[in-house]
């Protein structure tokens, strides 16, 4: 299959996007997937639809590369975990390995079990330190707050996409990702999303 890749292993980059239904996880995976396709890569993705979207955990898998065909990744295969929500990031850390870059949004969405008072939501510091005990490759971001700075909290997914594009070794150029985002959002939200993307990108490059 990959005669042209005589310089070594064929290119492959796996992104796992985790969060909660309604956070724009699917849109984010489309943005990155379209950007990867425009850059000439093959893309295989899988998404969660249906019942799990009713306030449940959502996972979107994005596999970019020369020979990818499987929509699912193996355990630990992720090169990047894009965590839209801190508890969901902690829950899904086993999707990555010791080299995986984890980007974690620190703004929580409380599950119904917590709002009803039947279970406890851990503190932010506690969550960060629990991940730091298993890997050093974690970057945190307050995506929802940054999105509010940009104009609206719903643009938190654009902040996260910007943050992903800023990570060292990320295989897609910033402009391709930004262009893909602006291409997918409705025209009247383009400025908001552009601003949110840039805030996320700059935050990671600080």
């Amino acid at each position, binding site marked *: 299959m990959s005669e042209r890749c005589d310089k070594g292993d064929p290119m492959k980059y796996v992104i796992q996007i985790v969060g909660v239904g309604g956070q724009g996880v699917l849109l984010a*995976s489309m943005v990155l997937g379209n950007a990867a396709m425009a850059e000439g890569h093959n893309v295989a993705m899988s998404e969660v639809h249906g019942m799990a979207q009713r306030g449940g955990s959502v996972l979107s898998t994005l596999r970019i590369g020369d020979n990818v065909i499987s*929509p699912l990744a193996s355990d630990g295969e992720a090169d990047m975990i894009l965590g839209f929500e801190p508890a969901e990031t902690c829950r899904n850390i086993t999707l990555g390995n010791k080299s995986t870059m984890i980007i974690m949004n620190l703004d929580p969405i409380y599950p119904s079990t917590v709002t*009803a008072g039947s279970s406890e939501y851990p503190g932010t510091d506690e969550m960060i330190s629990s991940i730091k005990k298993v890997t050093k490759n974690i970057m945190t971001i307050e995506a929802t707050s940054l999105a509010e700075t940009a104009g609206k909290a719903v643009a938190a997914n654009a902040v996260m996409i910007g943050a992903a594009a800023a990570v060292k070794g990320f295989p897609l150029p910033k402009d391709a990702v930004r262009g893909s985002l602006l291409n997918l959002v409705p025209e009247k939200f383009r400025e908001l999303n552009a601003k949110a993307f840039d805030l996320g990108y700059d935050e990671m490059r600080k």
Partner: protein
Amino acid sequence: MSANDKKKELLLGNDAITRGIIEAGVGFASTYPGTPSSEIGNNLEKIAEKNGMFFEFSSNEKIAMESASAAAMSGVRSFVFMKHVGMNVAADPMLTLAYGGVRGGMVILTADDPSAHSSQNEQDNRIYAKLALLPMLEPSTPAEAKEMVKESYDISEELTLPVLFRTTTRVNHARGIVEEGDVKDVPKKSHFTRDIKRFVNIPANARTNRIRLLELNKKAAELSEASRFNFTEGKGSTGVITSGVSYTYVKEWMKNVSILKLGFTNPLPEKKIAEFMKDKEKIIVVEELEPFLEDQVLRIAKQSNLSVKIHGKRTDDLPMAFEYSPGVISALRHLADVADDNVPLARPDIALPPRPPTLCAGCPHRGIFHAVRKAVGRKEVIYSSDIGCYSLGAQPPFMMADMILCMGGGIGAAGGFSEATDQKVIAFSGDSTFFHSGITPLVSALFNGHKFTAIILDNRTTAMTGHQPHPGTGREFGGRRTEEIKIEDVVRGIGVKFVETVDPYDVKATIDVMTRAIEYDGLSVVIVKRACPLELKRKKILEPRVCEVDQDLCVKCSTCILSIACPALMKKDGIVSIDKEQCMGCMMCGRVCPKDAIKVIP
């Protein structure tokens, strides 16, 4: 970049299938919505008309099957699609349809759901192909799904049989690069020519048609032998026979094996399989769910006098339950070379709160569940529930489902519970579910004198599957507009004496109606009518309103949370507040508050 100027898109499997039927020139399509097939219907609702196709949401899968059959018998290419359990409903017409067959190509899509991500079971519908003696194709990726669905029409027309097209969640909801193809120009209207021997299956004709069907299956086997969707690749003394999405895991995670990838899976290409096995040291059959391929491979090996060892589910090398993943392939290390695994990070040592799917903020089902609980009090009640968002009422704090079987099963089973026990029985049915298969059990209950209460949750849409219209909402797409059919009129028309309609946002009135319905000595029906706020939001007609808690009036009794359990209600350090991002302003929480401490923000 490719020099090809055809448009390439990153499509969901269901989008690729939609594109495939348009390119195939399908003139008639029908469905009853069900995950993981629903997006096809949502696409067709928007684009069928401009592609010259008639599309309908039928009341149930059986009707969808019957109407698509008629279109294909008339010579129009037709497409009918449903989730796996929907095929149980549609099986009756399907099994006889095979006897007389079709004239225009017909494809029947079954979207199976291994691991039951959004279903009540994980049945393997490939077995229907054997039962109905229908040719079957199984794609592995979105791109292949589009190609296969197009070719299925040629196969169907060559055989004069409908083709079963079997997908799984990881094909329907996978996304991949799909290239646009040319649209075939096929007439979208035809003229039905009488052929009594083929299409009127009275016993004498059925016997003739049975022979016809068996003969056509021999021809189908030849097509399967020659099909480009059954191919070999790779080199190795270990042979892997696989189909569907499992192929993608085998291809990426197994090394130094020879693969026989099967896409045309009924009838199987027996000669090709025997030929493939001949020089192999061992065979591994990798398929999800039942050993559908494996058992046939074992039989083919026996009939071909091959003694090669065949590994799979029958040898306990592979699991029968749940969907496969790359991890399932890695577990075959004892049989074949598999790719090196990454070592996953350890699970962080921290207690995380569970996040189960839940009824949305402002969901009217919360109001009726609360009202039922109040009206029932300490009485012992059996909740005979059904399929829909309200299935989530099984969770605390409502716990309002003692049994869920199938669409329409709630009202159907209620009759049995009411006769077999002395307990009070309350059945739940959604509005779309009522029209799907809730009317006949109500007729039967009245006929047989059953005494129970049926609650019809009329949220003005088929909510769970992504807000499709149904007979109770009327149709307004594809250039055709129809009036809504009123549930209350139907129930009264049947002859039910106790029928009340109530707004679940008016919690007190709902409790009152429910109290009377439960006390009623006979069959009582309560229609709970309030549109799904998610649907209103989608249509951009939701009036934005938000509530807040007046902390001076609040006595911190948590009645709102315990009664309505809305995700917009947040309790921290004993203080209840309302999340403005989530609140829909329905005021159900405010109406249960004993101190009137919750108000709509002016």
